[in-house]
């Protein structure tokens, strides 16, 4: 084994070293190290996407066409919301939604919707690159946020300042080996094709609706 190979092997250890040395550390301590670049949208702000695609915004929808696009959506802190940027009905109905105990949320990851509640396990249909078990992802795309009696529907997405949804990466799972037999008629030859997909498993650790006190200036 050559020296260069050894050196390259030693250089490869960056993703592993990201795992915290203390496994039982509170999750909040690692929030700053979250690798959310996979889920986060492109630098194009969602508001501009809405303006490009949706022709006319009905007043009930929660899109924030008037707010300036956030400069860095990945590490953006939940800024105090200005009531002018949101629909006035949110100001009256969102506290009622937040007051009811259980919430569900339809989050979108790579364009696919998943209806989850806090504590659910979510198996993504792909292996997410660049994450290790224990990473915390902030999911900021949601189309629906609801409780037993109230539902907040986005057009197409709910304003990301109105909720807080976090998921912990549990690991990678695989499916049992699939065998597909390729066979042509009137020919004895059979070919076996094997495939085994890998999936990233998440646990929804937190679904929180924003407090109205933070919204009112």
């Amino acid at each position: 084994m050559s020296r260069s190979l050894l050196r390259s092997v030693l250089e490869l250890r960056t993703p592993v070293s990201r795992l915290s040395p203390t496994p039982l550390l509170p999750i909040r301590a690692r929030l700053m190290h979250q690798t959310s670049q996979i889920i986060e949208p492109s630098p194009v702000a969602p508001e501009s996407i809405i303006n490009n695609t949706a022709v006319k915004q009905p007043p009930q929808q929660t899109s924030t066409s008037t707010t300036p696009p956030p400069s860095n959506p990945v590490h953006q802190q939940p800024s105090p919301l200005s009531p002018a940027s949101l629909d006035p009905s949110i100001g009256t109905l969102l506290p009622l939604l937040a007051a009811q105990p259980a919430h569900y949320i339809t989050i979108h990851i790579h364009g696919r919707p998943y209806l989850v509640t806090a504590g659910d396990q979510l198996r993504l249909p792909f292996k997410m690159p660049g994450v290790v078990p224990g990473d915390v992802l902030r999911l900021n795309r949601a189309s629906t946020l609801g409780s037993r009696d109230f539902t907040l529907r986005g057009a197409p997405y709910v304003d990301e300042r109105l909720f807080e949804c976090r998921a912990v990466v549990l690991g990678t799972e695989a499916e049992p080996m699939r065998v597909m037999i390729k066979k042509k008629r009137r020919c004895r030859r059979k070919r076996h094709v094997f495939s085994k997909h890998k999936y990233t498993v998440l646990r929804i650790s937190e679904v929180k609706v924003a407090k109205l006190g933070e919204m009112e200036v």
Partner: protein
Amino acid sequence: MTVVALKQISTARNGVGAFILQCKKMDFHYCDWAGSSKGMNGFIKSVLPRFAAAHPQIEFQVSPRPSKHPVIVGHYINGKKKTICVRNLDPLQVLKKAELLREASGEKLKRTTKPVTSSNPSVRGIWSPFHGEGLKV
């Protein structure tokens, strides 16, 4: 009135609150003589110290297994273990196998069709035809 033990009122959900890695121990078996262990020996010499230092929550054990192919065994919290034979692999490939064992949950591989597994009751409840405004015939 007999004394009845409390039923389990909550199920463990890893990641809600604390996160615990499911892999608790990894065994690395090698052979000094055999050529199929060449990559594994290089992995143990060069890569494993860093890999082990990055995972203080996993117990690492390295032991010889003469005249056999090299093997990595992962032990999991649920009591199961996974074994991967790494014969004739180079150190980078062995490292990938070790990472596979680290990220596995220890469960048996299952084919699932639904992406979301939930133990929570339904948030909006079950629809009832006798409540609400009703349907005019």
